[in-house]
C-alpha cells in the first residue's frame, strides 16, 4: 500500500485544508455575482484568476490537492472496508456524531458535483466541451445566469453545498486531529470555527443561485 495509513491521512488533511482555503476564494468571487453591475466585477475577477501567472501555478497545486484528497480518500476507504469483512447484524449504535460516519458518502456527493461543475464551467473554458449556443467559452457570468435561472439546477446545486457543509463540519476539526494539532485549550475553538465555517460556505454558495433564481 502506498504510504502508511497515518501518512495518507495526513496528506488528505493537508490537501483538505488547502481546499478549504480555496473555497474561501471561490466563494468571494461567486458573491460578486450578487453585485448589480452587469457582471463586470465578477468577470474581472474571473479574468484575473484565469490569467495571473501566480494563480495559474496555484491551480496546478489545487488540482493536485483535489487528486490527493480524492485518491487517498478512496484508498483509505477501501482499506477501511476490508478491515471488517463480516458486518454486524445490528449496526453500530455508539454515541458519535452522525456526520463523521458518512464522510466517504458526503465526499462522493461532492465529487459528483465537482465533475458536473467542471463540465458546466471549466471544461468549457479549456475547450473540452463546446459552449452552449450564444455563450462564449470565457463568459462565466452569462453561463451562471442561464444555469441558475433553472430552479432544478439551483436546487441540486444547493443540496450539493449542504452536503459539502456536512463534509466540512467534520473535516475541519478532523484535519487538526489527524495532524496531531489537538490541544485541550484550543480544540473547542477549532470545532466551533469548523462548524461556523461550514455553515458560512454552505450559505454563501447557496445565496447566489437563490438570488439569481428568485430576484433576477
Amino acid at each position, binding site marked *: 500500500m502506498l504510504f502508511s495509513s497515518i501518512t495518507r491521512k495526513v496528506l488528505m488533511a493537508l490537501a483538505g485544508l488547502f481546499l478549504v482555503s480555496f473555497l474561501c476564494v471561490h466563494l468571494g468571487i461567486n458573491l460578486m455575482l450578487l453585485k448589480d453591475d452587469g457582471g463586470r466585477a465578477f468577470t474581472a475577477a474571473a479574468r484575473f484568476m484565469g490569467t495571473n501567472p501566480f494563480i495559474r501555478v496555484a491551480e496546478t497545486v489545487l488540482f493536485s490537492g483535489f487528486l490527493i484528497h480524492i485518491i487517498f480518500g478512496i484508498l483509505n476507504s477501501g482499506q477501511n472496508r476490508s478491515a*471488517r469483512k463480516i458486518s454486524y447484524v445490528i449496526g453500530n449504535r455508539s454515541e458519535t456524531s452522525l456526520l463523521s460516519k458518512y464522510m466517504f458518502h458526503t465526499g462522493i456527493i461532492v465529487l459528483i458535483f465537482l465533475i458536473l461543475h467542471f463540465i458546466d464551467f471549466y471544461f468549457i473554458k479549456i475547450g473540452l466541451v463546446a459552449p452552449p449556443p450564444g455563450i462564449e467559452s470565457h463568459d462565466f457570468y452569462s453561463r451562471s445566469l442561464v444555469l441558475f435561472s433553472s430552479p432544478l439546477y439551483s436546487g441540486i446545486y444547493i443540496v450539493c453545498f449542504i452536503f459539502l457543509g456536512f463534509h466540512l463540519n467534520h473535516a475541519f476539526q478532523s484535519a487538526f486531529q489527524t*495532524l496531531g*494539532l489537538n490541544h485541550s485549550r484550543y480544540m473547542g475553538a477549532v470545532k466551533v470555527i469548523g462548524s461556523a465555517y461550514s455553515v458560512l460556505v454552505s450559505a454563501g454558495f447557496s445565496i447566489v443561485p437563490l438570488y439569481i433564481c428568485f430576484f433576477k
Partner: protein
Amino acid sequence: MNFKLKIWRQKNAKEKGGMVSYDVTGISPDSSFFEMLDFLNQQLIISGGDPVAFDHDCREGICGTCSLYINGRPHGPVKGVTTCQLHMRSFRDGDTIHIEPWRARAFPVIRDLIVNRSAFDRIIQAGGYISVNSGGVPDANSIPVPKHDSDAAFDAATCIGCGACVASCSNAAAMLFIGAKVSHLALLPQGRIEASKRVQSMVARMDELGFGSCSNTYACEAECPKGISVINIARMNRQFLHAKLVSEKEKIIRESL
C-alpha cells in the same frame, strides 16, 4: 426478569455462523450479564445443548478478556464499563438482546462470541515497551517526572486491551489502542528515548495486520470502558509526523509476522 436473546453461534473459525434465539426467564436484576449467560449455559448443558462460548476472566472490569457486542455497542449500553460489569438492571424486562462477537478482519472468530485478539500482542511486540533489562537501571527518583505528564501517561496506560475501540470503529481501526500505548510511553522521559522508532514500528505493524485507518468518528472514545481519550490518537499522529519529518532517518527493523 425475562429476556429474549439472539446470540451469534459459530462452531469454529471455518464454519459459517448465524444468530440463534434463546429465552431466559427469572433473572435477577442484580445479576451480571455473564451470570445471566452462565444461567443460560447451565440450562443448555442440562438439556443436552451446546453452551455458548464467550471470553471472560476477572469479571471485575480490568483484565480486558470480555468482548461482547451487545445491541449494537461493544460492552453494551452502559458507558464506561466492560461487559462483565454490566448488570441486568441496565435492561428492561422483556427486552430482546442481540449479542455478537467483535467484528474485524484482524480479530477472527474462534468460536461463537470468542475472537482472536493476538493482533494486539503483535502490535505491542512491535515496540510497545521501553527497552530496559532487569537490573542496571537508575534509582527510581533520579528522573523527576512532572505530575501532569505522569497522570496523562497513567490515563493512557489504563487501556485494558479489550478491543472495544476496534469493535466500535466503523473502520475497525486500532488507533486508540496504539495511540494509548504510544502516548503512555512518550509522555514519560524514560519512554521518550525510543519514541520515534516505537511509533513508526507500531503503526507499520498495525497496517500489516489489516486494521482500518482512523476517520475521527470517535466511536472508540465513546465505547472505551476505561474512557481513554482520542487526544492520545492526536498525540500519536504528532509523534508519527515528527518521527517521519524531523527525526534522523532510522532503519526500522520489521519483525516478520
